[in-house]
């Protein structure tokens, strides 16, 4: 690594931040928050480190049978680290780059250095701050109390962190690149689903293998021979898993060290570093490919296709009306045009594909997590079922639609300019945008509701009521989403639902919206609550009450939406130039 280059890149990063802070209040606030976050991170890291040292140091005084009990703590720490890191990957599938490599490609710099810097910066996240100092501290304490053999823990921990972060960095870049490619979308969707499902099974497996589960472990111990063979088999699987699964090398090596065996730790460190290096290497190659766009078309095959393509435009235009030419019943033509064009671009945007995947996957997870639990068969369980239907509806909006609605102009980026130029009343533009999002919102909701119905065997009355609640909640969140879209617009990084870097005020608003937004789903719980109240008090049967209240609620919400649309349109008109500058300028 070239020191001058490194210094220059850091200087660039600092200037970009400082200049940005000069330009806006949010920027200054951002600097303050960054400093606070840094201080907080240092405090947390030091706390974790000191805690780790103390635990490690006090091992002999803790009256534990051996240090290996403490070393098993590495399972916990490694698991926590993996979990955080995985969640981080899923929550933002995008490249994480402090320095935009695309702007350095023509300069005489070794891009590997820039890449390494970006990777290093990407590591500093909450999970690392929380977990890694604790691991290092624990290792240090153990060296003091259990002897110098424990020094092997240091490379073991570092190699573990390196391996995981490098591969996730690679995976992230790879996913982003794939999402750009229409043809591979299905593969990505399938892979993501499988990965997620597997990922959700990991804690399950760990629990089954490491802790004696209440269902099996205790009787197993009493049952003698049969239980013994079971536990032997389990031990064999255990050993194989530890040998072959790299993420397990850290805790396994640590425990082995406690038992006086050094080789697992040594091999684990070496293997971890090698695997990590491989991951980083791949990530670098895919980054270059991302920017320089190595084309994968086979010239031979493509040449034929070109001839066809050349012939194409000359042929008469197809008479079939395209999607964007459709008319929508009951809405003005400009609304239909806006809605269809916007729908088309939503279905093509990789960020929306990503959100769709997540929403297809969420029901899967729900199935996995909930299908084991005993279905409520008692009377009180029956009474709760309408709430489950409503809960599924609320969850669909909170996890899915809300993300699409909160910043509707962010997708447009430079395209928003054309809205500003259009001679169309602004509330019609809003209506068009909302109509474009409607199929997605309804899709998510119905999917969630269907899954919940299947799992919990919900009664038809509750399901029908929930359908009306869907209308109500979508109206509420569209109004809210219109408001946030107008008041705090921000630019999405292309290919992601989140900006790579973000101005401070939108960031704060976004956090607030993410935390408090779901509260606005509360009204749809009123109908099932009313239904339960009525049937408890034996005034009226619960199901029709729930249904009627839901219909009324839907009416009120849709009416409110319609009433508020015009004022929101005026607000949009007043703010459209600010929105334009927000969604077109990139935060560096």
């Amino acid at each position, binding site marked *: 690594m070239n020191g001058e280059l490194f210094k220059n890149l850091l200087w660039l990063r600092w200037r970009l931040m400082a200049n940005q802070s000069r330009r806006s209040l949010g920027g200054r606030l951002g600097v303050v928050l960054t400093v606070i976050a840094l201080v907080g991170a240092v405090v947390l890291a030091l706390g974790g480190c000191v805690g780790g040292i103390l635990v490690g140091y006090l091992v002999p005084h803790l009256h534990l049978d051996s240090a290996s009990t403490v070393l098993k703590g590495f399972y916990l720490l490694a698991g926590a680290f993996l979990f955080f890191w995985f969640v981080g990957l899923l929550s933002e599938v995008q490249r994480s780059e402090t320095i935009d490599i695309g702007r*350095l490609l*023509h300069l*005489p710099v070794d891009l590997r250095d820039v890449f390494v810097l970006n990777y290093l910066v990407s590591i500093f996240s909450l999970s690392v701050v929380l977990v890694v100092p604790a691991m290092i501290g624990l290792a240090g304490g153990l060296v003091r109390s259990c002897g110098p053999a424990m020094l092997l823990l240091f490379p073991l921990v570092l190699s573990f962190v390196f391996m995981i972060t490098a591969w996730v960095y690679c995976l992230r870049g790879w996913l982003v690149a794939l999402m750009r490619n229409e043809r591979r979308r299905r593969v990505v969707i399938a892979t993501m689903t499988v990965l997620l499902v597997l990922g959700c099974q990991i804690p399950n497996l760990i629990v089954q293998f490491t802790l004696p589960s209440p269902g099996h472990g205790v009787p197993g111990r009493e049952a003698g021979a049969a239980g013994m063979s079971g536990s032997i088999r389990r031990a064999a699987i255990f050993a194989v898993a530890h040998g072959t699964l790299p993420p397990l090398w850290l805790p396994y090596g640590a425990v082995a060290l406690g038992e006086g065996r050094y080789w697992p730790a040594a091999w684990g460190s070496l293997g971890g570093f090698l695997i990590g290096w491989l991951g980083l290497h791949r990530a670098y190659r895919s980054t270059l490919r991302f920017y320089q766009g*190595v*084309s994968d078309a086979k*010239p031979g095959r493509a040449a034929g296709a070109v001839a066809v393509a050349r012939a194409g435009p000359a042929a008469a235009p197809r008479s079939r009306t395209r999607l964007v030419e459709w008319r929508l019943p009951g809405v003005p033509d400009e609304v239909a045009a806006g809605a269809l064009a916007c729908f088309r671009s939503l279905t093509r945007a990789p960020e929306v594909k990503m959100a769709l995947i997540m929403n297809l996957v969420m029901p899967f997870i729900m199935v996995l997590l909930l299908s084991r639990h005993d279905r409520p068969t008692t009377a009180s369980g029956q009474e709760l079922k309408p709430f489950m239907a409503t809960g599924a509806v609320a969850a669909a909006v909170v996890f899915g639609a809300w993300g699409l609605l909160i910043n509707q102009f962010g997708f447009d980026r430079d395209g928003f300019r054309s809205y500003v130029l259009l001679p169309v009343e602004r509330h019609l533009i809003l209506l068009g945008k909302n109509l474009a999002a409607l199929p997605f919102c309804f899709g998510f909701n119905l999917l969630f509701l269907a899954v919940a119905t299947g799992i919990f065997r919900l009664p038809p009355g509750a399901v029908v009521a929930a359908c009306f609640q869907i209308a109500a909640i979508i109206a509420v969140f569209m109004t809210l989403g219109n408001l946030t879209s107008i008041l705090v617009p921000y630019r999405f990084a292309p290919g992601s639902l989140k900006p790579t870097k973000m101005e401070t005020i939108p960031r704060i608003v976004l956090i607030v919206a993410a935390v408090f937004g779901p509260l606005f789903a509360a009204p749809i719980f009123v109908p099932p609550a009313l239904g339960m109240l009525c049937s408890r008090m034996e005034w009226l049967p619960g199901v029709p009450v729930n249904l009627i209240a839901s219909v009324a609620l839907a009416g009120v919400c849709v009416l409110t939406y319609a009433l508020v649309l015009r004022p929101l349109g005026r607000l949009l008109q007043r703010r459209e130039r600010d929105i334009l500058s927000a969604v077109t300028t990139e935060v*560096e």
Partner: protein
Amino acid sequence: MMLAIETQDLTRWFGNLCAVDHLDLQIETGKFYGFLGPNGAGKSTTLKMLTGLLAPSSGTMRILDENLADPRQALAAKRRVGVVPENLALFDNLTAREYLTFIGRMYGMPLETVRERSQELLAVMDLENEEKKLTVEFSHGMKKKLALAAALLPNPEVLFLDEPFEGVDPVASRVLRDTLTRCVARGATVFLTSHILEIVEKLCTDVGIVAKGKLVFQGSMAEIRQGGATLEDRFLAVVGGDPVERQELSWLESES
């Protein structure tokens, strides 16, 4: 004479579209080379590949005898090259001087030299009174001038410019032309893409014309003038532009 730019069978596919089709270029050092062609002909794609912004699908490229396929040689070539890319690649939140400082240091120049040259370049480009402004607050023409200043800063032996005159005011255009002419006089090679024929005609010593990714004409301005033709005649002859038929767009002349 040494070749500044040399390509062999340079090809770039975008899916099914062949943007650059087996391009063979040979440009000697000290030439002022105008790379012409209609919109979408593949000029920018060629320039991007030559400057490392885009990977070629196949073919080889050499700049100042360095083979760009080899990463180490590519780096050595970049050190001797200045670029104004299509989208300029500026950082929005730097001032002009900061950007030049950054670029100079990236080229490994001593800070003192960077400072002196930045000062002069900013003066020439009429940007020195914009100390406080960030690039994001620049007009399009100002951005272009800054990008050009950055390209000139390391005093490169080869300059790649993508549409340098587009969106630049007449004064700046004049400054730009003079600067480039001086660079060529000193022995540098300039490779610029453009579709403004008048400027190319005045400036360039050599031209190449591409259409649909293929090189359809290459020669010196002297050769073109010898035939008594103008560059525009030549261009239209090889690109084959028919005048728009009267029938089409006739509604442009009607009332609504």
